[in-house]
């Protein structure tokens, strides 16, 4: 299995490498040095090749083949104070058709230079693909919220669609055989069932006491599979990990936080707001803010951990590949070629590591969510843990019993055959 997967990764990596290599090479050849100053510079490599791929953007990058711009939706307050929603097919359309200007490339800060609005300049900027990377500003009135569809949203939706497709199909299969429970059939159902049972038995049950895990299992399963699929999408060429965006992981963490706040027991709130019951008042006064800050920080850390892991991985990969082009600029072509070998080797290693991290981070996010929820819903006077143990259904114990029965049956069968 691994032997079959590894070449696949190398192929995937080669495609990724080519997709990165192609745009940069023509860029050097086709754009005359004097025209727009678009010589391949270190800055350009860092911005376009490394950060441009890791960050969010309002376009899909299938670069050797196509570059698809995504629709822009703006919630704006016009000059006369009305709140309207404006939608454009792409950033290009936004700049050409609406009262928007492009902040100049290379300007530090927002308001220093006038945005580019003149059509000639604008065309030049669009020709140089600056509109994809530079922020746009409204010339009259102001943008309240930029509700544009971004790349990470698209890949997040894609991950959701994949999860929906998989599990609605699976649920259909279960519904069919609902009257008579039967063994799972096929690799697909078996694999998914193993994961579902894993989330239930290893994540939900041990961490959420008193059989309350039933309430939170759907959320945990949803979070687990969304994160897992989004993480794995980050390994696919041309795609990106939605979880490598702080907004996405932030929303996930806020969901967990909201569940914690909504479902927390009164005991939990009491202890959170008044401190531990048998502590003196002075200590309580110190402890309560610490507890509250700790609560918020825990969930913040949940978001940042996932985001940092995924973004760190993609940054490292893009940096390793970007190193090739940096070497090309700094030390010439021969150095670039030799760097390619080292870079590719390291990238393979990092990709494999990312595959591992994809699973681990999905697991860690879900188990920590379950832990926080479990801490919040736990009621103190009940000794929950034993109940959880006894309440668990089919576990190792059942298997042992099955083995014992089988053993005995076999032993019974032997004398008759012998």
């Amino acid at each position: 299995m691994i032997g079959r997967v590894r070449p696949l990764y190398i192929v995937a990596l080669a495609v990724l490498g080519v997709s990165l290599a192609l745009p940069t090479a023509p860029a050097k050849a086709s754009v005359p040095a004097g025209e727009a100053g678009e010589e391949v510079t270190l800055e350009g490599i860092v911005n376009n090749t490394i950060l441009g791929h890791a960050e969010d953007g309002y376009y899909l990058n299938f670069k050797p083949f196509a570059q698809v711009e995504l629709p822009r939706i703006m919630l704006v307050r016009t000059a006369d104070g009305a709140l309207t929603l404006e939608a454009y097919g792409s950033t290009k359309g936004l700049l050409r058709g609406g009262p928007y200007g492009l902040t100049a490339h290379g300007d530090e800060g927002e308001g220093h230079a006038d945005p580019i609005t003149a059509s000639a300049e604008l065309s030049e900027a669009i020709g140089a693909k600056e509109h994809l990377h530079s922020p746009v500003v409204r010339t009259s009135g102001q943008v309240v919220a930029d509700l544009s569809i971004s790349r990470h949203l698209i890949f997040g939706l894609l991950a959701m669609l994949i999860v929906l497709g998989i599990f609605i199909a699976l649920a259909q299969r279960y519904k069919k055989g609902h009257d008579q429970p039967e063994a799972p059939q096929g690799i697909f159902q078996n694999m998914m069932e193993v994961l579902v049972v894993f989330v239930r038995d290893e994540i939900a049950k041990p961490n959420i006491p008193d059989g309350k895990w039933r309430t939170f299992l759907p959320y945990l399963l949803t979070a687990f599979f969304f994160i897992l699929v989004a993480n794995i999408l980050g390994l696919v060429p041309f795609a990106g990990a939605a979880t490598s965006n702080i907004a996405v992981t932030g929303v996930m963490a806020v969901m967990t936080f909201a569940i914690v706040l909504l479902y927390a027991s009164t005991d939990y709130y009491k202890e959170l707001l008044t401190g531990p019951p048998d502590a003196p008042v002075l200590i309580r006064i110190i402890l309560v803010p610490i507890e509250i800050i700790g609560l918020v920080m825990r969930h913040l850390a949940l978001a940042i951990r996932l985001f940092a892991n995924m973004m760190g991985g993609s940054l490292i990969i893009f940096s390793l590949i970007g190193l090739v082009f940096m070497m090309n600029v700094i030390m010439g072509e021969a150095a670039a070629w030799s760097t390619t070998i080292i870079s590719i080797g390291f990238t393979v290693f990092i990709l494999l590591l990312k595959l591992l991290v994809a699973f681990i981070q999905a697991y860690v996010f879900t188990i920590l969510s379950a832990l926080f929820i479990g801490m919040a819903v736990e009621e103190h006077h009940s000794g929950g843990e034993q109940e959880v143990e006894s309440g668990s259904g089919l576990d190792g114990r059942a298997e042992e019993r099955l083995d014992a029965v089988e053993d005995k049956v076999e032993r019974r069968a032997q004398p008759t055959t012998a």
Partner: protein
Amino acid sequence: MTALFAQSLVTPSVGLIFWKTVAFLIFLYILYRFGWGPITESLEAREEDIEQSIRRAEEALQEAKEIQAENEQARRDAEQKAQRILREARDSAEELREEQKAQTRQEIQEMKEQAQADIEREKQAALQELRDEVADLAIGAAQKIIENDLDADRHRQLVNDALDDLPTN
């Protein structure tokens, strides 16, 4: 060298937060409604089924064990019974044979005794007959002697002759 527009790398964008929240809530709802329900329910149903099957198997095993023990007991009883019957049969057969033997022996004894008695009787009868015969002969001889007026020698001879004529027995 400054990395200009990469600030979106670490700053969350409002639009993405908004869309992501909406999308995730819908996603969660759809999966909750159509995905996880049937899956977890049928998983649980199956687990219950398996649990029950195991319990049934255990019960069946227990039952089988009991039946086996019962059978074992019955077999042992039957064996004992058979043994007892066999022993009894052997004993009675022995007894019968003894009896038979004794009877036979008695019969033989009786027959022997009867035979002996017969012989004795026959012998007595023979002796009696002999005696009668001898007496007749003696009388005959005496008659002859008397008839012939015999001397002593002649007398003796006659007696001896008579005796010689007696069958030797």
